[in-house]
Every structure is written in structure tokens, then in C-alpha cells.
């Protein structure tokens, strides 16, 4: 029942030995303090923004209890995805097996919550006690009119990245193109792969797509409806947004459905324009491309005009960047746009490719953060004394202890930063952070040293 890892194209790859590069060979030393989470976490990150389905975690309370409804993925419709559902495996389930309980739970949830589908997540404990989640889902589905989809993602399979890939496999095999759906392509339509609609990011991108006449079939997955996902194979183009962790999915969609894919990012003016132009080019419509070239120029000018005052504040500031996924490289150019210099950069949960791309974009003098534990992070802040830190929520409160301005760019944030509108929001928030009077108060000696009182 375990996911075949060779299928995920991982095990045959040698570990990159380069310092600071994320390791895909799945080894973290016990006690070393690496904080790379687990495969279950990676799978839920990708699948849980499917909004009108139920997500049932077949595990002990630690898996769902500590984590449900904790991401900023937003929905324009159903809120069912935010519900925390778990079989809460107990001692008796460990002894007698949890399959019966799981099946009962699936049927009860179907009846109570009327989901479009139920995703069932296997965890470390359910796998260890030998519960056959595939079979149980199959049996439950026979009694229901909706798909019941197993996701075999026990945490011990590896880190978050592996979970992302498992989720991609599940979407390909069980969701996309399933059911009674047309195969006909929708002209000028795209899927955004790896866009999770954190803080409503998508809503900053859709207006530009609409203005250009491009249809968003679905984001995989962000503000995603199950039926739209099933028809994802009708899109004319896949745009891979967040890292390469879902590359397996777009490759398979290319082979099976003939959908070409491109990579892109909607963080920052430069990347947004580039991505829109790449989309127009790939869609192969000459008129669209001409429209797009004019449009992005106009939007760039507008946006640059709006952020000019923020740029004045931020220009020449020295930053440390620490993040994951596509933001790794996309943030480098976003910060550069604002005139911010990157002193050091590091990443967790990115692929080696994303890491390489970040490195190529950064100034050669910028340091790579090699030790990605909290201790390593603190050390680099102490050494570099940056003007600001741009990083994920995990490091937020750590950074505050160093009394350095900090901006959260990962899933815990409240504000959308994608697209041209997002860039304005980003610049505004970043300059508000840098300008905040609190950092001065934090750094002031108190009580003042002798003789300084009159200054």
C-alpha cells in the first residue's frame, strides 16, 4: 500500500552535496534540529485548498489536531475544506485495526457534510498498524455517490517535498480527467499549478488574466472546486508556479492530455510580466501576445509609479532572505526591484533547481545560509546585521528577538502579494515594516548609560 517512491523520481537522484542546498535524499539527522516537516504535511498543503471536499485524516490527534485550519488558503465559496476531520486513532484502533472506524467515519462525513469528494490521508500510525486505506476507501465509495480518494502520505516517507509529489500523483490518477467530463480543450485557458491562494493571492492575478482574455480553468490547488479540477485536462496550458515539487504532475499531464507546461511566478513586477508574456506565447495566439506585450508595459508603468514612494524608503537596504518553494528565487528579483540588496539567502523545502535558480539570481557576494536550523539562522543574523529579514512565519518570532524588522511571506500571512496589485501591497507592507518606529525603541538602551542622558 505504500507509495512507490521510485515512481516519484526521487531515489535515483544523488544527494546534492552543495552547502545550503536542500537535500532530496530524505536524510535528516536525529537531533540535529532540521525543521523540514513530513510527507503528510506536504500532501495536505497541496490538497487541502480544494474547497468543496472533505479532508479526513486517518491518524492520531497529533496529525490533524495540531494543524487543521492553520493555513491562509482562502476560498470564494465552500468553507468545508477548513473543517478539521480525523478518525483520532486510539489505543484500541492500534490493537484491532482502524479500518472499520475509518469506513464508518467516511460514511458519516458524507452524510453530514455533503462533500463533492472525500480525501482520506493515511498517516504514520495508520500505515504502521497495516490499515489498508485504499481498500477501505474503495469499499466506502461503493456505498456512496461521490469519490473517496486515498492519499498515502505517512510522515515517515520523508519531508514536505515528497508529500507535495505524492499529492500530485493523487490528483493525476484520481481526480484530473475523472468522472463524466468532456475532453475538448478550452481555448486560451490555463491551470496554475502550485498556487494555493494564500491570503487570496489568486484574486490579485485573475483580473489581469481576464483583461487579457485568458481563462483560469483552476489553480492546483487554490480556491479549487472539485469539478473544476476534474476538468483540469481541458486547459490549453499548465503554468507551474510553486517550485518543481509538482513537476511530476505537469509532465504526466503533458504526456496524457497533450498540455504543454511553462514555469512562472507572480511575485514581483518582473516575474509577473514575464510569466504573462510566456503564457501568451505558449498559448500560440498572435493577437493575444500583441495585446499582452502592450498590457504588461502599461501595468508595469502603473505599478512602478505607485511603488516609487516605497522604493525611496527601501532602496539600499540590506536584507536576509529565508524561504521556500518558488518564493526562493522569485523574491530575489522582487527585492531587487525595490532596490534591496540581499546579504544572505537560504531555503527550506525547495527543490535543488529552485535553489540553484536563487543562487544564480543573487549577487555573487551574497552568502548562502548553510545551516538552516534556528541556530544557524540566528548566527547569520548576528553576523550580517541586516536592515530587514524577509522570511516565512516559522522564523518570525525568532527574528523579532534579534530586534530586526521582519516581513512574513509564507502561508501565515494575511495580505496577498501576488501579481501587480500584490507587488504594491508587498512594497507598502515592507516599507511600513522598515519605517515602523518600534525598532528604534527596541534598540534603545534603557536605562541609558551614564553621561548619555542629555543627548
Amino acid at each position, binding site marked *: 500500500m505504500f507509495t512507490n517512491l521510485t515512481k516519484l523520481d526521487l531515489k535515483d537522484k544523488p544527494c546534492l552535496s552543495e552547502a545550503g542546498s536542500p537535500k532530496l535524499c*530524505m*536524510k535528516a*539527522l*536525529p*537531533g*540535529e*534540529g532540521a*525543521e*523540514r*516537516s*513530513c*510527507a*503528510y*504535511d506536504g500532501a495536505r498543503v497541496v490538497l487541502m485548498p480544494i474547497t468543496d471536499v472533505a479532508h*479526513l485524516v486517518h491518524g*492520531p*490527534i*497529533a*496529525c*490533524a*489536531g*495540531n*494543524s487543521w*485550519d*492553520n493555513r491562509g488558503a482562502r476560498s470564494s465559496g465552500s468553507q468545508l475544506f*477548513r*473543517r*478539521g*476531520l*480525523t*478518525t*483520532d486513532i*486510539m*489505543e484500541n484502533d*492500534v490493537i484491532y485495526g482502524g479500518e472499520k*472506524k*475509518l469506513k464508518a*467515519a467516511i460514511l*458519516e462525513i458524507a452524510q*453530514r457534510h455533503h462533500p463533492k469528494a472525500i480525501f482520506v490521508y493515511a498517516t*504514520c*500510525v495508520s500505515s*504502521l*498498524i497495516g490499515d489498508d486505506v485504499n481498500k477501505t476507501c474503495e469499499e466506502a465509495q461503493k456505498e456512496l455517490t461521490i469519490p473517496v480518494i486515498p492519499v498515502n502520505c505517512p*510522515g*515517515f516517507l520523508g*519531508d514536505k517535498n515528497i508529500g507535495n509529489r505524492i499529492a500530485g500523483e493523487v490528483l493525476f490518477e484520481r481526480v484530473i480527467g475523472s468522472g463524466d467530463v468532456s475532453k475538448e480543450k478550452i481555448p486560451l485557458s490555463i491551470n496554475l499549478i502550485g498556487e494555493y491562494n494564500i491570503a487570496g493571492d489568486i484574486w490579485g492575478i485573475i483580473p489581469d488574466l481576464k483583461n487579457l482574455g485568458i481563462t483560469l480553468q483552476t489553480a492546483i490547488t487554490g480556491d479549487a472546486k472539485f469539478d473544476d479540477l476534474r476538468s483540469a485536462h481541458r486547459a490549453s496550458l499548465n503554468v507551474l508556479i510553486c517550485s518543481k515539487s509538482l513537476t511530476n504532475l505537469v509532465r504526466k499531464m503533458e504526456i496524457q492530455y497533450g498540455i504543454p507546461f511553462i514555469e512562472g511566478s507572480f511575485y514581483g513586477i518582473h516575474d509577473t510580466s514575464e510569466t504573462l508574456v510566456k503564457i501568451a506565447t505558449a498559448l500560440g495566439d498572435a493577437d493575444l501576445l500583441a495585446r499582452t506585450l502592450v498590457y504588461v508595459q502599461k501595468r508595469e508603468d502603473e505599478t512602478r509609479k505607485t511603488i516609487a514612494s516605497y522604493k525611496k524608503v527601501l532602496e539600499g537596504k540590506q536584507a536576509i532572505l529565508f524561504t521556500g518553494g518558488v518564493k526562493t528565487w522569485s523574491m530575489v528579483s522582487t527585492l531587487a526591484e525595490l532596490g534591496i540588496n540581499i546579504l544572505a539567502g537560504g531555503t527550506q523545502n525547495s527543490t535543488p533547481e529552485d535553489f540553484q535558480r536563487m543562487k544564480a539570481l543573487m549577487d555573487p557576494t551574497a552568502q548562502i545560509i548553510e545551516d538552516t536550523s*534556528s*541556530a544557524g539562522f*540566528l548566527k547569520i543574523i548576528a553576523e550580517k546585521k541586516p536592515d530587514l529579514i524577509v522570511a516565512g*512565519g*516559522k*522564523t*518570525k*518570532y*525568532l527574528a*523579532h*528577538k*534579534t*530586534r530586526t524588522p521582519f516581513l512574513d511571506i509564507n502561508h501565515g500571512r494575511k495580505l496577498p502579494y501576488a501579481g501587480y496589485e500584490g507587488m504594491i501591497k508587498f512594497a507598502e507592507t515592507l516599507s511600513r515594516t522598515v519605517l515602523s518606529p518600534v525598532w528604534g525603541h527596541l534598540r534603545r538602551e534603557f536605562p541609558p548609560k551614564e553621561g548619555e542622558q542629555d543627548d
Partner: protein
Amino acid sequence: MTETRHYQGNPQKNSPALGATLAYLGVNGLLALLHGSQGCSSFIRLQLSRHYKEPIPLNSTALLEDSVIFGGWEHLKKGIAVAADKYKPQIIGVMSSGLTETYGDDMVSALASLRLERPDLNDMPVVLASTPDYIGSMQEGYQRTVEALVTTLAGHQIKTSNQYASMSTARSNEDPALSIALLPGCHLTPGDVDELKEIVMEFGFNPITVPDLSISLDGHAELEAAPVVQGGTLLEDFQRLPKCRACLSFGLSMEKAGDILKQTYNIPHYNFPSLTGLTATDTFILTLAKLSGKAVPEKILRQRSRLLDTLADFHDRLGGLKVAVALEMDLLYSLASSLVEVGAEITVALAASGAGIHRLSLPIPIEVGDLETLEERAGQSTLIIANSNGRQAAGLLKLPHLRAGLPVFDRAGYPQKRWIGYEGTQQFLFDTLNSVS
């Protein structure tokens, strides 16, 4: 919970290992090591971090597929050794997870085996807490960990002189007759623990608090963040526990830890299931007066008098409250009983786990339940008291929602709240009334 349901819908339970982490975070110089996969520790860090707005140092043994086949025994040994070498903590605190308890790793023998291989680590205290998920919720994990801390570290002789050793030499000269051991349950916020210590000091006692979140997770900007706990109970304080004049434990879940001290060192032990509410505080204050032989300080009498005046001023509004409460047991009992004694009606009382359910009583039966149950049953209430995850229920029912418990991530300042003692009770009643108006 309804009998027919085979799942938790919007669980209010947190994992016991999260409770264990919380207890360990109140011990100075300790490195917490979760024996499990990296996800187990990631989720705990994230959950505690968004509640306390603090970095949460928590390491893990990073178990992978091979450990499922061969067990995690060697990983645990390696994890302790690597953490000890890399971070040089004063104490290592280990907690188990659902994964390692399911394949039955024997932590005691792993530690013994490590000590044979690495004699240089013999003097480093290692606390082992068994916290599989099925024992309940945060409260149970915290409880077991405090028991393990007290059992392993009380009376501990410090053999090595290290960077921490000189931190409290002055305090060891204090009169043991004035020392008093405090065991706060996880229903008390760092702010509550601070208040508790202040009250005890009003009676001339020197409190030794285990664990002491009031000086580690109180959200202060003075210390640099570190991979080991900074602030909290000192190892020297554990050494002084056996000589304490008395032990006071708070929350029924802390009763056993207090009894361990009582039985091992012959210290009188008093348990206080609640510190919120007039009568609960009266009991506590009278005990302190008796133990100290002192009259109740003027300051405390004044606070009591203010609380009485508040009760009179707002008796009608308090009496009109119909409150649905879903919390971990000790907090559920503390807050609900303080509302009951001022005339409010408790409409629903849902505990995260069943511990103490037969010993703590409210006018209505306390049941074990999730927040989906709260949603089903709270319709006729005027207020919901639950952690931030109760927002879905409150939103659907269009009811005001007073945040309490853990996690509280969408309101400012919860960890700093003081809802115990006379003044704290007054504040709790104000917060309650203000959330319905």
C-alpha cells in the same frame, strides 16, 4: 460526543506531545526532543508559535521509513547524543509520539544503552515522558511531563560545573521554611503564573515554580532566542524542591505530581482544582494564610472587595448569561465554575478529554466532545467560550466568542491574560461581559 460518530469534527484536542513541549518550555537550559517524525515537531512548533507569538525550540529524532522497519531505538540514542553535542543543553527532555509508541520503542533502555556508550553524557539529566496520542489531549501530555520532571529532577545533585551553574547561588541560601513549591497546570497562562507567584510572595513565601512559563514564554524581548529553553525553572530549583515547606498544585491534572513530592519527600500537598472565581480564590488565600501564619495582606483584601463590588454592579447581566464552554478539562472547570457561582447558566460543557470527569462537577454534566458537537449544541446560548478554532462554530451560530485555552491565534495578548485570583477573576468577568455587549 454523539455516540454514532466515528470521527472528530473540528477537534479541540491538541496532541499530548504538544502538552509535553509546553511543560518542557518552562524549564531553563532544557532542550526538548520529540521522538517522532519531523512533521510531529513541525506542527507543534507552528501551533505553539502562533499562540504565544514566540519562537518554539523543539528538536526531533526525524524518523523515516527505515525506523518503521527497524524501530526508532537507535534513532533516539543518536538524537540525544547529537543534540547534546551540537547544542550543549543542561537538560534534555524527551517525549514520545504516536508513531514511536505504536512500535513500542523502550526509551528507558535506549537511554541506559547510550549512557554505556557515551559515559561523558552520564551527568546530563535526561527526562523521559511517555506521551502517546491516545492518552488524551494537551493536558494529559503536560501532566505526564511535569510528573516526569519532578520524578527525575527533584533533589537532583548537580555534578558538573557548567555555564549555568552560578545562576542562583544566592537563592540556595534562602530559608527552606519559606520556600513553597508551585505546580501550575497548563490551564494557566504565563500571565496567570506570574500573578500566582506574586500572590504567594505577598505571604512572604519564596515560590519554586515547576514548570515556570512566566519567565520563559511570557513574551519578553530581553533574551536572545536559542535552541534551548531560556528562562523557566532552574535545575538548582529542582534541587531545592525536597526541602520546601509545602507543595501547592493547581488544576486537578497536577494533583499526582504534587502527590509524588508529598510521598517522596514528606511535604504537605494541597491541590486547587481552580484559581478563578471568588470561592476558589478564597480557599487558596485561606490556605496561604494558614501556612504562613500571617493575616491576609491588605492589598489582597482590597482586591477581594473590588471583586465583590463588581459582582454587585453586574449581577443582573452575569445572571442573564447562557454560556457554552468547550475547553481542556482544568480550564473548563475553572472558568465555568466561576461563572456558575455568579448566577450564569452553563448550557454546554465539553471537555477535550475525559480526565477528572467524575471528580469535577458543574450543574450540568461535563461531556467529552469536539467543536462540531459544540456547533450542534450551542444554539440556545448567548456566548461561546472556546479556543480560536471555535470561530467556525461561533460564525455559523452567529454567537459572540470569547477566546480561551490553546490555540488562541486571532486575538492579541491571550498568553499575558491574568484570570486567576480576585483581580484576575474580576478581569475574566469583564472580558466575558464585554464579549457579549
